[in-house]
Structure formats: structure tokens, C-alpha cells
């Protein structure tokens, strides 16, 4: 019913491509438990999505749905982009009043960074210790990177990471990321 496919914020100005980096068009929804309703929310999400809302510093995935802890009793739920607003509506129904649900599918941009050199790329702006002993698959963090607020999660041990940033920052963020990855263009 929608006339246009949503545009990516990365189309607003050209950013050079890099083999380690790809955008993941997604539906992204912010859900925050209402006061005293975190338990209800967790149960409802478990029943509907088959995933446990993760504790701080982690994300949980079930099928192609991912939930990342971002603030106390608040998660970012992500899935591949589907019908406009569908994920948010499903979460509203699931939460049934136990959470405040906010669609961020357009407000946030999700990017994948993968390859052996990925930690070295991120070290140019990320202040977290990404050594495997400190940060591995299943872990997530909200942390600024090169002046841009980001959600970082490690998908697997490739290592492959996903980064979620505010859409209006997507271009400068990608510019920094591709710049930082330039020296590894051939070695990913």
C-alpha cells in the first residue's frame, strides 16, 4: 500500500563502499517496560518471539529477530525490514500495555562490519576492549564511536559486528568507518 520503499539515510550523500561493511535494512523498535511490568513483558516476548529479553551487556536472537539491551528495562528489537510498522504493531500487541513501544525503523540505521581486521577498525574510535576474552558473540554495548552514539553487538567470532546508529549520523559514521577500514580493504 505504500507508494515508496523507504530510503536509506545512506542514500542522502554518497559514501564509498567497503568489502567489510554492509547496511542491514531493518525494522527496529524500542520497547521499555512500564514501571513494575518488566516480568510481564519478558514473559510476553518469550511467548511471542521465543527469546529471553537479555540482561545488560547482551543481546538475544531468535530466528531473525534480535533484542538488545540498551537501557534499564529497555531493549531494541530488530528484524529484517518487513511491512511498514509491522514489528512495532506486533510488539504493541504482545506487550499488551506492559511496555512503551516506539518504532525506530527509520530513526536508526543498522550496519554490519565483519572480518578479521574488524576489531582493529573499531579500535580507531571505540573505547571498549573488544578482545575475545572481554567481548564476544552474544555481547552488546551502547557506546559512542568517533563522536557518534552507537549500539554495538557481536554476532559471531568471524568476528562480525553489527552497529546501530541514529539515522542522521549514519553518513558521518559510515565515512569514519570506511576511512578506518581503508587500510584493510584487501585483507578482510
Amino acid at each position: 500500500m505504500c507508494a515508496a520503499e523507504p530510503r536509506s539515510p545512506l542514500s542522502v550523500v554518497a559514501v564509498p563502499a567497503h568489502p567489510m561493511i554492509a547496511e542491514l535494512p531493518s525494522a527496529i523498535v524500542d520497547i521499555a517496560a512500564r514501571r513494575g511490568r518488566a516480568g510481564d513483558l519478558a514473559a510476553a516476548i518469550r511467548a511471542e518471539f521465543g527469546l529471553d529479553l537479555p540482561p545488560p551487556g547482551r543481546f538475544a536472537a531468535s530466528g531473525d529477530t534480535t533484542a538488545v539491551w540498551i537501557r534499564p528495562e529497555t531493549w531494541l528489537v530488530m528484524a529484517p525490514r518487513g511491512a511498514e510498522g509491522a514489528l512495532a504493531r506486533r510488539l504493541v500487541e504482545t506487550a499488551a500495555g506492559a511496555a512503551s513501544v516506539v518504532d525506530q525503523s527509520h530513526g536508526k540505521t543498522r550496519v554490519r562490519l565483519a572480518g578479521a581486521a574488524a576489531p582493529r577498525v573499531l579500535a580507531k574510535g571505540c573505547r571498549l576492549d573488544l578482545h575475545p576474552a572481554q567481548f564476544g558473540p552474544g555481547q552488546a554495548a551502547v557506546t559512542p564511536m568517533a563522536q557518534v552514539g552507537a549500539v554495538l553487538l557481536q554476532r559471531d567470532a568471524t568476528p562480525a559486528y553489527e552497529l546501530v546508529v541514529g539515522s542522521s549520523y549514519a553518513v558521518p559514521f559510515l565515512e569514519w568507518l570506511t576511512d578506518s577500514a581503508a587500510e584493510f580493504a584487501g585483507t578482510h
Partner: protein
Amino acid sequence: MHRIDCPWCGPRDEAEFAYRGDATVRRPAHDAGIDAFYDYVYTRANPRGWHTEWWHHAGGCRQFVKVVRHTMTHEIAGTGKAGDSLPVPAE
């Protein structure tokens, strides 16, 4: 660069936080009058020593973290959530 142990996110660099001042002052009741609000907004103990203060984890979980920090040595004795009352070491 201070290293602040956010009760939710774990130890993070100062760069992720915004300092938000003395955490011991409390907002008075709305009818407490100008003097009470003057104290709340303006006057500060400003100790040289241990100081309980707010650091907003603006780049992370966006929580106001309570931090007990020494204003001379920049040592951090403890951190907690907004509602926690943190022990303040003796000088």
C-alpha cells in the same frame, strides 16, 4: 581519563559520561521558598576530598550514575544507581 563503573554497563571511560554535579543536594518541596531553592540550585559544599556526584552515562545507558570520587586524587571509591546511598570513605 576517569574510568567509571556504570552499574549497568560496567567500567567505561569518562568520555562516555557527562558530569552533572553534586548528588547530595535534593530538590526541596515546591512550597519550600526561595531560600531553600537557592541552596538547592546554588550553594555547594565543594569539598576537597570525597565527593558524591552525578555522572550521566549519556553515551551509554543514559542513566544518572552516582559516583563517590576524590576531588584531589581522582580516585573512585564506588558507583551506584540513582537511589543507592553509597558509603563515603573517611579521609
